[in-house]
């Protein structure tokens, strides 16, 4: 288990972390999710030992690691921009940590071959990083981090510099890799879809604090506040509650608890249709229904409908919810 206890960190005037505590269970894949400037990367770098906290402590597997330098924490770290050793071949990059540990040559050779196979770079041993694509460089960086058999794998926006398709492939691949290797993994991301798709636990961060920790489903269905709710997906504001657009149902006739509305705009998204409504002639909300539903209700601009919530309100907000940047 990695335990973060009441960690504070400032850079000059800017408070990057404001009394953060977090426990990361062994063998899990945990995402630190938040907008830029929320402190998620700083927290990861403090766990790695690349930054020192101003106050607070870091425990890795039961022993205090707060003052340990990065090379003695038993971690593997993957950087957003790969941090490939440009003057070394792929083989030497991956072997670096084992050479530092003075492991026997034939063992290094065998392990490099094995790891390059695992990350799908078999046969690329003698290439230099500038002869690899971004996705290949990042997989090499992963092999390099895994070569030293870390107790903890830390990834800082590992797919942030890659294009959307490669990013989606690599995150599926990372999840499968994690299921095989089972090393405790912490991933920093600002992409809620990425966090939902691969992690067991998500810690949502904002302004240097952790807003909520939980599984993907728990966070989506039971967000602790408006920020978490709106960061994890689209929201509609209905009076003083926030609801998901797909938790609003539309009908042609009035029913218990339904409110009258007029259709302002219909947007076809494919399987689903987003309906923008004007409630009581002034409140704007959007609802999401299936295409069949939209056809059955004969939704069109100016049509009168009745809007009703199908789920209990998740979050009550006295003021307009803060929206993520």
């Amino acid at each position, binding site marked *: 288990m990695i335990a973060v206890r009441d960690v504070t960190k400032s850079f000059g005037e800017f408070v990057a972390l404001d009394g953060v505590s977090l426990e990361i269970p062994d063998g899990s894949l945990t995402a630190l999710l938040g907008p830029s400037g929320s402190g998620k990367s700083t927290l990861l770098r403090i766990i790695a030992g690349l930054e020192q906290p101003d106050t607070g402590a870091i425990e890795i597997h039961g022993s205090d690691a707060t003052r340990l330098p*990065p090379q003695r924490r038993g971690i593997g770290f993957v950087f957003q921009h790969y941090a490939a050793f440009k003057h070394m071949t792929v083989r030497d990059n991956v072997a670096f940590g084992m050479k530092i540990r003075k492991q026997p040559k034939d063992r290094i050779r065998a392990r490099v071959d094995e790891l390059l196979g695992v990350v799908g770079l078999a046969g690329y041993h003698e290439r230099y990083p500038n002869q690899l694509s971004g996705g290949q460089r990042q997989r090499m960086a992963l092999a390099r981090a895994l070569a030293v058999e870390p107790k903890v794998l830390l990834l800082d926006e590992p797919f942030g510099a890659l294009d959307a398709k490669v990013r989606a492939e690599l995150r599926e691949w990372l999840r499968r890799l994690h299921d095989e290797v089972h090393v405790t993994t912490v991933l920093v991301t600002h992409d809620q879809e990425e966090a939902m798709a691969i992690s067991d636990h998500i810690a949502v961060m904002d302004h240097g604090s952790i807003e909520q920790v939980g599984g993907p489903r728990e966070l989506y269905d039971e967000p602790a506040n408006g920020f978490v709710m709106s960061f994890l997906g689209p929201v509609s504001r209905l009076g003083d509650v926030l609801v998901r657009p797909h938790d609003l149902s539309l009908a042609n006739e009035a029913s218990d608890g339904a409110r009258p509305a007029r259709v302002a705009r219909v947007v076809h998204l494919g399987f689903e249709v987003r309906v923008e409504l004007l409630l009581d002639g002034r409140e704007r909300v959007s609802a999401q229904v299936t295409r069949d539903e939209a056809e059955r209700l004969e939704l069109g601009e100016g049509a009168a409908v009745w809007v009703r919530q199908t789920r209990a309100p998740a979050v009550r907000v006295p003021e307009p919810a803060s929206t993520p940047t």
Partner: protein
Amino acid sequence: MTVDRRSRILLRVLGLGYLALLLLIPIGIVFYRTFEHGAGAVYDSVTTPAAISAFSLTLTVTAIAVPLNTVFGVLCALALARGRFRGKALLNAIIDLPFAISPVVVGLALILVFGRGGWLGGLPFQVIFSVPGIVLATIFISVPFVVREVTPVLKEIGDEQEQAASTLGASRWQSFWRITLPSIRWGVAYGVVLSVARCIGEFGAVSVVSGKISGETETLTLLVEKRFQNFDLAGAYAASALLALIALGTLLAMTRINPRRDDA
């Protein structure tokens, strides 16, 4: 920028003509005059005891000054590129001082400090009018080259590779030798070549502090000047040609290094 064919040729003629007029023709004449009376005379002229002593003194001074400035230069570049400390801007400015100050003034300053009655005039060994003074002067005038070549390279590569090395178990020392130094090696090499060329060619500061004792404190450049003053033109040309050859050799070494800087 697109340039049409005719103006491209014009630009080339202008550039090469300028170089030819100011550099190639004078150097060519030196070589021509040197070998005007045959190679035998040249050989005799550069193998006199005074010439051999001057040649070896120049090489000795260079061999002391360049390694010192290389080590100091890399440390200084690391401080400038990575460090966060008070007085960084000041350090940055001081490093350029040898470019800004005339070498003659440097020589005079050394005499004020190390000469008779100077702050450090009471040292047990002689500095001024002796080899240590020449070494000091040469070190001073060649300080900036390695620093100025290595600092931008360090800034460009950033410190992420070093961070990665530390997460993989490398100590600072290991990460310096295995990651930082190989990444900046072409910058260092380029700085060393420029320093060597500068050290060999130094005249002003050395001239002031050396005392010009033939066979003891006379460097190659000083020998050229002395022969010229004594109307020994053939001897001056021969020594000049030797200097020019060493300089050309180091510059050739640099052009061999230069194209490889791209993938550094």
